[in-house]
């Protein structure tokens, strides 16, 4: 136990203020975001991540926004195991034919109002997999998408920024 405590103390807090270029943007969305999240989501935004056919690259980066450097929980963002509790679906793609039905079901299981964020080049437009017998292309081929985060895979900062921007633009969409 003493070793664990020592290691924790020695490590300290590694969570960083976001780098200046991104921080500028996030600060802008940040203040708005606080308001938006407080207003619409009772200070906590709950995300259900759905892999609709990705190569696992995007998943690794989504994991990374949970690590202590990015610490997405400080913005009130956390991930839920069930779509029933989710405010936002974070969907990576391309949508494979074999996942289409499961993705629609997950969407239908999520209470409205809800946001859909398409992650990665493949989630945006099918990427290198394109459209074929097995791949339907981007997420927007199946679900209404509120926000796209391109990148292969998008960096954790791009992901955070994308999520925040989606929330920021939230009042503009649906009832």
């Amino acid at each position, binding site marked *: 136990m003493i070793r664990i405590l020592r290691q924790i103390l020695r490590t300290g807090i590694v969570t960083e203020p976001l780098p200046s270029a991104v921080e500028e943007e996030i600060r802008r969305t940040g203040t708005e975001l606080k308001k938006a999240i407080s207003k619409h989501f009772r200070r906590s935004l709950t995300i259900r991540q759905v*892999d609709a056919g*990705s190569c696992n690259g995007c998943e690794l980066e989504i994991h990374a926004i949970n690590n202590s450097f990015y610490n997405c929980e400080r913005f009130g963002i956390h991930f839920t195991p069930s779509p029933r509790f989710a405010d936002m679906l974070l969907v990576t793609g391309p949508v*494979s034919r074999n*996942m289409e039905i499961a993705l629609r079901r997950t969407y239908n299981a999520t209470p409205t109002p809800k946001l859909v964020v398409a992650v990665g080049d493949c989630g945006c437009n099918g990427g290198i997999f394109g459209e074929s017998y097995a*791949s339907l292309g981007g997420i927007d081929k199946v679900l209404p998408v509120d926000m796209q985060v391109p990148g292969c895979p998008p960096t954790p900062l791009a992901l955070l920024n994308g999520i925040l921007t989606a929330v920021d633009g939230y009042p503009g969409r649906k009832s």
Partner: protein
Amino acid sequence: MSMLSDALTAALGADLRPGIWPDVRPGARPDIRFESGQRPLSVVCCTLPKEKFAEAARILKKAYALLAAEWAADETPFGKGFAVFACYRWGKEYFIVKSELPADDLRFPSLTKKFLPAYRFERQMQSLMGVVPVGHPDLRPWIKFEDWPQDSFPLRKSFDATKPMPRVVGDYQWLRAAGQGVYEIPVGPVHAGIIEPGHFRFQAVGEMVINLEERLGYVHKGIEKKFESLSWRDGVRLAGRVSGDSTVAHSITYSMAVESLAGLPSGLSGSADPAGYSIPQRAHWIRALFLERERIANHLGDIGAICNDAAFAFMLYQCSRLREMMLRTNHRLFGHRFIMDRVVPGGVTADIDAAGKEEILSELEFISRDFEKLVVIFDESSSLEDRVRGTGILKPAKARELCVVGIVARASGMNLDCRIFNPFPPYDEYDRLELDVPVKISGDVHARTYVRIEEVRESIRIIRYILENLPDGPIVSDLGVPSPGTAGFAAVEGWRGEIIYWLQAGPNGEINRCMVRDPSSINWLGLEQAIPGNIVPDFPLCNKSFNQSYSGHDL
């Protein structure tokens, strides 16, 4: 030439020794011949009549060979029918047995009763290529879902892959257990965590699992078919996205398979490879640097996640911190956090300078110091040990029967590692990059974690050695064009295990078939066998300790 081909020719009674390629000695039986188009020359490909396909498996099993892959190819562009292939591994050798099937009779004898991994390979071959394994005990489709049209075989040349397929009504027969107190838990495809989709069905009594049935295929994106529409150069981008966590290993394997077909004559610079191509030596070393960095980063993530699934979140946060540091260094030095698209056929596109070397060395110094502290904590946490020891055991005998590869194999007593037994540059005899691999025999979650721990240490040592001895020179060279009808093969030890690519050039020199064998294609069977007897709540822990790729399996 090869011990396996000797064993086979002796047992078949064929008066045949592979003479000087591509000659076939006079008196040889015309139905048994060695393929002259298979590259590299160290990999032997032998064509047998299809009646002998399973007999060859029996002979090779007796010679203690393991089945590495089985696949089918559509050879109609060559004016022929179809062909089935089985690739065996024994020690340092890979040996491919091929049988040709006429287009009007696509049956071939199943290998499943000789080699268990053929179970899924053959279901997949039947589903996607429409060849029929005779004697296979379970011909439910695999990857092909029940709502696909029955007559759609995407890997056939006659199939139009650009059009979407209609959905039809169908049903999948699950295995069912019956009896008092037996119940079923379906899980997935959308899982609770941030992971890929797959479906698991547990038959359980009380807390104990009596059977686990996997159903995969949800992330089937038509990768193998997609390769056929790409050029040799563009294929590497797709290979880098077969499994995002193994992007480096997959790009290296693909590139090596292409290089074995289209390389320059050796002897200019770099290692004189028996395959007869020459890629700059520096490129090989930088590839190894990328490969080992990928290994460390993924192992760190896994060690943390395994502990987290045993409710020891401390390790997750500590390990992901170290992992994040490595990814950032990758981004700074090589321009991508996972070093995606930095390996191309012919070499690499990212170099490293003296400052970069310094940065990596000091980072390794830090990571290795912190990592050792964490290992002590791991060792001393008795409650953690209680969860990981004796959980999810894959016994050595079963592991061998299933022909598992990589960390799963090494945790179950099998001493397998392509870097040692099928050494590719710079791990081969020319560059002498030596290494030790850890082998454990208990086959439980603890063993699989500890194999990773020791591999992290070893990879840190390898990277230091690479940086000290990195040869100078160019990092990329031009490639030739693959000749029609040739086939290239490569096997590389990624962080999960052995990855195999087999590429066949068509009549016009294009990609006719690209077979991808991710370690997950075999190791998922290992998970299915390791679960019965464990309690349901231990499944996530066991699954994480295997951590197989869904995307690499489904393709």
